[in-house]
Each structure stands twice: as structure tokens, then as C-alpha cells.
């Protein structure tokens, strides 16, 4: 074997120096990799890759919202009888949407893991919301958020169908006024358009805070902000709402003009009678003056409170002044209003509407005495004073002079209301 003799050391050192030089020089002058040396993906490949990436991020996003929806869905229930979803509002209460004039009394609540029968419900025919009492549900979703949302923030709408939980992501736009059944309210505007199937569902932010309850508002559906839903639910607890819900009646104290018109009759005047409710079935009409309840004199609406008390067993008997007559009317809270509906069905299986009564008002001049009385286009004029309208001539005659005040009865959206048409200014 060759050994490096001492004489070779110089030789080896030179070689090493040359090697270092070669490496240094070589790495200095070596060509930089040209971009063209790398395989360049074509334009279509790039576009396809971009699309794939974007699609992946969309999938991730959808997955994120699905997870979020799963998280909040524990607070979203299905109410098969009401045909809507519901959100656990407070411990023991579920807020849901109301469609029919009457809210179903015995309501089933389909929760995530079980079905529960509701123990009661708070609702009123003029409110789009209903509060359903279920003893053993606990509130999970915070109903109010600490930080005001900004435009563009992500939201997710979650509702429940018979098939299961459904969700839709959206962006927050604004909070805007909305009117639900003449009731001024506020809604959370988002990029979503709500439909019937979403009613009763919740609109949540990405922290799981409730931003709105999806309720029917006029012709459309709106995510009403939680504070307004709270207000509606407490409104539903009021005496007026309970009277409406139970008997379809709205009453009020008489104005001075009315006292004069009705020639000094004292009592509480019936302002609205909702068609299909027990008040209407019993024969009450707008303009009736309730003077006594079960024989006791009624001076103000407060005197009527016993009729909405839960403990009321006997059907109340109202003494009513109508024109000159004094009537005794018994109203049964549980009067079967559906019977009247089925009357309209014959054995031939035909269903029809009863003929329209009264005259439809096409326009109301602003500032006129009709406008002052609250009459609106679309209302149907049924009665003027004592006279049921039968012909156009009759109506012209009755309204022609305007010298005297007239109590008129109109029908609007399934309710009859009475209003005093004041006498024309001379």
C-alpha cells in the first residue's frame, strides 16, 4: 500500500488547494437555475390548480359552518304541530313562529334526542311569535352579544326540518326597522332571504350568539332581533293580548266623542272582533259596549280581567249595550271555531268561501275624516251606524252629508274593527 511519504505532503497540500479553488470558482460561475429549467405548469393547469385550491377552501368553510351549526343546533328544536322550528329562548321557554290565527294548544317539541310535550303556550293573534313552555329545557345559546356586529361579519342561519338540522351561512348587513303585523320591530338584515321552511329558526353569529329569530313579518320573513322578540313575548303576556288570544276581542275605554255618539252609555267599547274566535262566534260586534261582567258593573278594561284568568271555569256572561238594546252574551273560550270551517265543505268535497260582504275601499284621501278614523285602502266597509250595507246608493246616502258622526264597522285581515267617523268640519 502506498503511504503518503513526507515528501508527498507538499503535493497533497497543493492538490487540496486546487480542489478548494475549483469548488470556490465553480460555485461562483455556475449558472443560476433558469426559471425555464423548471417544468412550468401550463396556464390551464394553473387555473385548474387555483380552482382546486379555492374549492378546497370553500369545502373547509362549509365544514366550518356545519360544525358551527351542529354546536348551536342543540338550542334549535322542531315543532311539528306548529310547522316551524323553535329556539330555546330562556330556561323552560321556546320561542317559535306563529302562522295560523290560533296557535296549536297541545304542542309537540322535537328536541335533538327526544320529543317533549309542551305544558303551555303564550301567544296572541297579532304577534308573529309564540312562547312555548317546556319544563325541562335549559337555555344554551346566549341571547345577546356583547360586541355589535359589523357589516360583512359571518352569520349562520340554523333551522330544523323533519329531516333534520339545516343551515345556511350569511353575511351581516345591518339592523333595520321592520313591521310585523303592524307591530313596529327591528330585524337583523343579512344576505339570506328567509322562507317559510326557515320560520322559527335562529340566526347566529360565529360565536354562537343569537342574532335574530326568523318570524313571519307581513308578506315576508325577517330575523327579528332578540330584544324585540323579548318585547313581543312580554306583550303576549299582557291582558289585551290574552283577551285577543282567548276570545279574539280588543276592547278599550270610550273616547269623549264616542260617549257623545253613544248617548252617554258607560262601559268598555269593543274595538276589534277577530273572525273565527269565540267572541265573534258568541255574536259580539265592534261598537258593542260592555257594561257588566257576570252581573258586576264594568267601568274600565281592568274590570274585565277575570275573563282571562287561568282559573276561570264558568263561561263569562257579558252584558252588552248595542244601540238601544241590552244583550246578555255568554262566550265560551273553547268554542269550536273549526266547526264553522267544516260547514263550508259539502259531501261533494267542494269547499268555498262565503260571499264577500261590504264594499272594498280603494283609496282614502289623506287628511280626510276617514283617514283620521284609521280607515285604509283595502278595508271592507260593512256597516255605517246601524245600517248593514246592502247597496251602493245606501252608502252614498249615509255618507253624503257628513253632518253627523257615524260609527262604522270595517273588516281587515280577518278582523272586524269599529271606528267613529267624526262629523265633517263645517
Amino acid at each position, binding site marked *: *500500500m502506498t503511504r503518503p511519504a513526507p515528501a508527498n505532503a507538499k503535493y497533497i497540500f497543493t492538490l487540496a488547494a486546487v*480542489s*478548494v479553488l475549483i469548488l470556490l470558482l465553480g460555485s461562483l460561475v455556475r449558472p443560476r437555475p433558469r426559471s425555464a429549467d423548471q417544468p412550468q405548469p401550463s396556464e390551464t393547469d394553473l387555473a385548474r390548480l387555483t380552482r382546486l385550491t379555492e374549492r378546497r377552501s370553500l369545502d373547509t368553510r362549509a365544514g366550518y359552518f356545519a360544525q358551527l351549526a351542529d354546536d348551536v343546533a342543540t338550542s334549535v328544536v322542531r315543532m311539528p304541530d306548529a310547522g316551524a322550528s323553535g329556539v330555546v329562548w330562556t330556561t323552560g321557554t321556546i320561542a317559535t313562529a306563529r302562522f295560523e290565527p290560533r296557535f296549536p294548544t297541545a304542542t309537540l317539541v322535537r328536541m335533538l334526542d327526544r320529543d317533549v310535550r309542551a305544558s303551555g303556550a303564550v301567544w296572541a293573534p297579532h304577534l308573529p311569535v309564540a312562547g312555548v313552555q317546556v319544563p325541562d329545557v335549559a337555555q344554551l345559546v346566549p341571547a345577546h352579544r356583547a360586541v355589535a356586529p359589523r357589516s360583512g361579519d359571518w352569520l349562520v342561519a340554523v333551522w330544523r326540518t323533519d329531516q333534520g338540522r339545516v343551515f345556511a351561512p350569511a353575511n351581516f348587513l345591518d339592523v333595520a326597522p321592520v313591521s310585523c303585523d303592524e307591530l313596529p320591530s327591528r330585524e337583523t338584515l343579512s344576505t339570506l332571504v328567509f322562507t317559510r321552511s326557515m320560520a322559527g329558526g335562529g340566526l347566529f353569529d360565529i360565536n354562537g350568539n343569537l342574532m335574530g329569530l326568523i318570524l313571519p313579518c307581513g308578506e315576508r320573513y325577517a330575523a327579528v332581533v332578540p330584544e324585540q322578540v323579548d318585547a313581543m313575548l312580554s306583550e303576549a303576556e299582557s291582558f289585551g293580548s290574552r283577551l285577543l288570544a282567548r276570545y279574539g276581542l280588543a276592547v278599550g275605554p270610550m273616547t269623549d266623542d264616542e260617549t257623545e255618539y253613544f248617548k252617554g252609555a258607560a262601559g268598555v267599547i269593543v274595538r276589534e272582533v277577530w273572525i273565527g274566535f269565540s267572541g265573534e262566534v258568541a255574536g259580539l260586534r265592534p261598537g258593542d259596549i260592555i257594561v257588566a261582567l257576570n252581573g258586576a258593573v264594568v267601568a274600565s278594561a281592568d274590570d274585565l280581567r277575570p275573563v282571562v284568568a287561568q282559573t276561570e271555569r264558568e263561561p263569562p256572561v257579558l252584558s252588552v249595550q248595542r244601540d238601544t238594546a241590552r244583550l246578555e252574551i255568554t262566550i265560551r273560550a273553547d268554542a269550536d271555531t273549526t266547526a264553522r270551517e267544516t260547514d263550508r265543505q259539502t259531501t261533494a268535497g267542494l269547499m268555498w268561501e262565503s260571499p264577500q260582504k261590504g264594499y272594498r275601499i280603494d283609496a282614502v284621501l289623506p287628511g280626510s275624516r276617514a283617514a283620521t278614523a284609521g280607515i285604509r285602502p283595502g278595508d271592507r266597509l260593512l256597516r255605517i251606524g246601524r245600517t248593514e250595507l246592502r247597496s251602493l246608493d245606501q252608502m252614498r246616502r249615509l255618507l253624503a252629508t257628513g253632518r253627523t258622526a257615524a260609527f262604522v264597522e270595517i273588516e281587515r285581515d280577518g278582523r272586524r274593527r269599529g271606528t267613529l267617523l267624526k262629523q265633517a268640519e263645517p
Partner: protein
Amino acid sequence: MDQLTSLGLILLLALLAGHLVRFIRVPEVTGYILAGVALGPSLLGWLSQENLLAMSVFSEVALGLILFSVGSVFEFSLFRRIGRQVLLLTLAESTLAAAVVTTGILYFGQPWQVALLLGAIAIATAPASTLMVIRESDSAGPLTDTLLGIVAVNNLLCITAYSLVAAAIELLTPAGGAASFLETFYRSGFLLLWQLVGSVALGFLVGLLLAGWSSQVTEGGEVLILLAGAILLCVGLSHLLDLSPLVASLAVGATMVNLAERSRHVFGALSATDPPFYAIFFVIAGAELDARLIPAMGALGVVYVLGRAIGKFAGAKLAARRLGLSTEVQNYLGFALLAQAGLAVGLTLAVNSRFTGFAPVVSTVVLASVTIYEMIGPVSTRFALTRAGEVGLAKAAHDPMLPDRR
């Protein structure tokens, strides 16, 4: 699968496969490779692409160690004795293999670029499996010595030929027009020079470091640390500087064997402890083979496989007869040169990035053929050594390729 789990699995199954194939008188290397094929993505899929990628560092180290060992054939006294015949034999078998493959591919209607690229790649003989078979069978003798020398030189030749062909293609094929003739010439020519001269320079420096330090280190374990460190450094720097880790490792071995007083000690420590590396290396190599490619290679693949074999056989035989070598060498040297693996695959990757137009044909043919050669190569090498009567002659506790062993 988790990296450590798959590593353990690799080692144990490689050992098992090595034992199993011994019964049918097949080299253990083939057993390792077959185990790799079975575990790999193309069959069982226990080793995923990610596993293979993560363990590629083992392959790099193992290949570096193997070429370091092969480099020891450049020991002065040995090479002075057999250098001339090794050079002639290598030139003959390489040229003939390249020529036959190129002609065949041209005959089958492929562009000249594809034919030349395949011809250049056909030169390479896998150093790893050849060395392993020699070790495993304790071979020694004229065929063994010549074989190691040829494998070392023919890989250098392959890199040179490939670089020349690549330069020619870039100069003669009208490219996008962006690059001038001079620039192309500079790029291609420099690459060739750099890969050879630069790699040798790097290998020499690392070898010098190794040789100088090894005289201070006596303990077997420490020698191994020194060696592993030097090889890792060499391979890493090669990657960093775009050099050829293959040539550089070869140069480290050559420098070491000529300069270190205790080189035998170092090589001995290496062969005592490196088998796990090699087992992993061959299993990974097997797992990266895709047996499903074989049916896809078509007529071109058959031409490549047969043409390369014929070229190697004929070249080795003619040159050996001319040199007046023994009939054993004349008859069996060709068999020992069939194995083909890493370098061919590496060049295919280079073709993929440099000549996208020709890459599909070249890749398919080479990758499919490598699958075949990788499996039959070790068997054929073993056959040659057995027939030449050199198996078991190095029993005397010497590593087969150690210098001054006789």
C-alpha cells in the same frame, strides 16, 4: 404509517425476506428488493409515498457509503495492476450497450434525442447491488476485482455520456430561442465539467479530512461516527452545490484508500456496522419500483432491456478475449454487469425536468426496465461469481474489496 413503525417493519421484513430467498439460492439483496416491492405503494401499500420520502435520507447515506466502499478500487497498487484492463473493458461494454440500445430505439422510430438519452442511461451498472452481492458471497478473484473497477468507472462514464448527450440536445434542438448558443453551451458544458471535476474536488477534500482524522481515531464506534459524518457532509454539500453525490462519494473512497494509513481499519468498521443501512436502502429501492409499469413499457422497453444486455455481454466478452483474460471472466463478466438502479432513475428525473418533451418515453422505458434489472441483476451477478468460482474465496475475515489483502 408512522415513520419509526415502518422503519422497524422494513428491517424485520427485509431480514425475513433475506432468509427466505436464501433457500432458493437467490442473493439477499433480491430478497430485500422483493420485500420492498411487496410493502410498497404498488402492492400492499404499507409504505406510503410519504414514508418513502421521509426515509430517503437513509437511501442517500447508504448510497454514499456504498460508493465510498466502491471507491477503494482506485487504490494505486491495485489500479496500476488492473486499471488498463478495467478501462478497456468498461469502454467496450458501455459503448456497445449504448450503441445497441440507441440503434434499436432509433429503429423503432423514436427521435434521436430519445435514443441517445436511453443509450447513455443504459451504460450505468448499479454499484450498490453489485457490491452487496460480492460481499454477501465473500467473493474474491480476478472477476470480482475487475467487476468492482468496471462498476466504478462505468458510472462515471454514464454521467459523462448523459451530460454530453444533454448538451448536444440543447445545442441542436431549437429551443424557445430565448437562450443564445453561447449560453446553452456554457450551461451544458459547465454542468458536465462541474459534475465531474467539482465532485472529485469535493470528494478529495472530504477524503483528506477523513484520512487525516482517522489516524487519531482508534475505537471502532468512533471510526463509524467519523465515517458517517464525512459521508453525510459529502452528500449534503453535493446537493447544495449541484454536484454529483455519486462521484463525490467515490472520490472520498479513492482518496481515503490511498492516503490513510489505517484505511483498512476504517473499511472494516464500515462493513461490520452498515448492513441495516443497506437493508433499508434496498427495501426503499424496491418500494419505489412499480411492477405495474412493466406491461406499459412496450416494444421500446423490450429493446432497451435486450439491447443493453446484449451490448454488455458482447462488449465484455470481446474486450476480455482481446485482453487475454481467463475464460471465466470472458464468459461471465457480462452477467455481472446487468444490475441497474439508482443512477438510471436519477437521470430519468433529470430528463423529466430538462427535456419535458422526451420525458414520458424515457421515464416509462427506464423505470420499467429498472424494475426488471433490479430484480434479475443481483441474481445474475451472483450467478456470474459462482460460475467463475470466486464465491467464498474472501472468507479470511477480509472485506472483499479491501486493498492489500493479498
